[in-house]
């Protein structure tokens, strides 16, 4: 282990942690150690972990605040649902369909991410944030207008701008099936998502993101974050690397969305609104910007917290809000910060410097 650099060691520990957590949870699940509501949380947690890690790529590594990450999840979810549902008769094996759905979801989210990236990445700071927010809302409303059905002739898609059309206007042949019903969203989806698929998706995400960060491209992306002008002056193509991070992040969010969409039999586009984007952003910031395993832990803790607080019934979201504020206040308190750094330097490990550099 000595030969490994610090970064590589953290990466390996992250993989190991995720694998161990998966094994423990799987064993618990097999032995009936988890009740029904806890089992129901597993797949969403996996999806949100992927969401948080991918958003961390945009916010923490690229340094651009994105408030529309749920939009990519939405694109992935609905394209994934359409894929899985329309291939239901062709491919009988559920895992294969799930995998295809995630690939298609990731592909469409990446395309949308590329299209959005062209205008968005020319802006900076709060203006960039507001435009990503705007795109998130636009995607949500466009999907609300979508009517999709499938029959033996293939897919039927109507774009319901006037709001007057219904599923009957799809003119489906007999035996056809409506997949997305406008504002109601996807109904009657076969839920083929599984915890194992979620685990595999997390591992793939980690491999992609961590290798990207440690690569030449990743260093270029971080250089752009730290000082755009300096990076440009040493010959880094700013637009290219920004786009690379943004599209990768969108594609991963799309895959997570496909998994999420196939975990529920009914799913409306309004699920992926501004609040969902904010929720993921909270995971990322509380876990630490640019810190991958921090995002994972923050997601798990914060996703379980409202469930764990069920005993407090209606007070739980209030407590959640207070926890959020208190955590932000204490982690950023200057007195506590210096005290923590003193403690660290006292115990010799000299993480101090690294924490500052990061």
């Amino acid at each position, binding site marked *: 282990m000595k030969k490994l650099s610090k970064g590589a060691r953290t990466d390996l520990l992250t993989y190991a942690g995720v694998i161990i957590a998966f094994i423990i949870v799987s064993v618990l699940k097999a032995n009936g150690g988890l009740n029904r509501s806890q089992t129901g949380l597993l797949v969403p947690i996996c999806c949100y972990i992927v969401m948080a890690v991918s958003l961390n790529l945009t*916010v923490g590594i690229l340094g651009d*605040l994105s408030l529309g990450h749920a939009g990519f999840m939405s694109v992935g979810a609905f394209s994934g649902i359409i894929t899985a549902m329309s291939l239901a008769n062709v491919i009988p094996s559920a895992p294969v369909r799930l995998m295809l759905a995630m690939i298609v979801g990731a592909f469409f989210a990446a395309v949308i991410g590329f299209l959005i990236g062209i*205008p968005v990445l*020319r*802006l900076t700071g*709060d*203006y960039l*944030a*507001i*435009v990503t*927010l*705007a*795109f998130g*809302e*636009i995607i949500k*409303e*466009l999907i*609300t*207008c979508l009517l999709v059905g499938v029959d033996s002739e293939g897919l039927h898609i109507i774009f*319901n*701008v*006037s*709001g007057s059309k219904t599923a009957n206007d799809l003119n489906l042949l007999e035996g056809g099936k409506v997949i997305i019903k406008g*504002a109601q969203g996807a109904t009657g989806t076969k839920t083929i998502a599984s915890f194992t698929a979620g685990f595999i998706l997390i591992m793939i995400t980690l491999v992609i993101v961590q290798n990207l960060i440690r690569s030449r491209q990743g260093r270029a992306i971080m250089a752009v974050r730290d000082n755009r*002008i300096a990076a440009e002056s040493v010959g880094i193509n700013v637009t290219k690397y920004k786009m690379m991070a943004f599209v990768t992040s969108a594609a991963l969010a799309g895959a997570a969305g496909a998994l999420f969409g196939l975990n529920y039999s009914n799913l409306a586009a309004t699920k992926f609104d*501004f609040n969902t984007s*904010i929720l993921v*952003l*909270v995971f990322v*910031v*509380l876990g630490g*910007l640019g810190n991958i395993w921090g995002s994972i832990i923050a997601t798990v803790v914060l996703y379980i917290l409202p469930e764990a607080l069920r005993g407090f019934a*209606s*007070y739980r*979201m*209030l407590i*959640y*809000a*207070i926890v*959020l*504020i208190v955590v*932000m*206040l204490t*982690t*950023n*308190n*200057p007195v506590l910060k210096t005290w923590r750094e003193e403690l660290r330097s006292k115990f010799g490990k000299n993480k101090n410097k690294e924490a500052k550099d990061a």
Partner: protein
Amino acid sequence: MKFLAYLVSGISLGSIYAIIALGYTMVYGIAKMLNFAHGDVIMIGGYVSYLAAKNLGASPLVSVLIAMAVCTVLGITIEALAYRPLRSAPSLAVLITAIGVSYFLQNSALLIWGANPKAYTPVISGTLQLFDGQLSVSYISILTVACCIVIMVGLTLFTGKTKMGKAMRACSEDKGAAQLMGINVNRTISLTFAIGSALAAIAGALLCSFSPALMPTTGSMPGIKAFTAAVFGGIGSIPGAFLGGILLGVIEALARAYISTQLSNSIVFAVLIIVLLVRPAGLLGKYTQEKV
């Protein structure tokens, strides 16, 4: 005539956005933070004026004044407890704290007043008939537009002419230098929050007079729209917030009437994106060239 009616409803909706956006833009200009809790202060303002009118039997004007007082205190308290300790923290930390405050206010309202929508009594009712009754303009629209213009002019004069206003501009320019000139930065920021929150209370009463269903989530969407309006006009600029709010309202009303009800928000946001691509600092914002 129909077009005029849509235009009037757009302008009055836009005036509400403008009032909220003025609060946003003042706070942003001075504290350089997106105050996500602003929309929820609007909601609290709405509830307070509703309760004052219902339980105390206060007249609409008095109920709005009470709401303004409560929201001012609330705004100052939020700033002192949640934002002031983070003055030197990274901006994302402040953003997350603001989101936390927003959740806190929404869920407190949910616990205290319940999820059922309350029927708000408009502060003023009746309509004005113009052109032999072909065009009817409600008094609340007229009141809203009037309020908005008065507030905009008042704020411009305040920041331009008074000593406190000058202090505010100094703080938004450079906090350190302002402090060296003997300006109490903390007090100035508190004052900004107080003004912003009082405006939010007025906006709350007007918003609820338009769409009388008052819920704990009433403030969120108008809050986001108003934020968009502030960016649209150039964030930090008072006339910009006014212009952005009015334009946003008009675009939304016309899009709803002529293009698609379902896509009205998308059209508003699409226009925002196009404007930002042409003018990256908003319509009236100052574009500062990056110095190397």
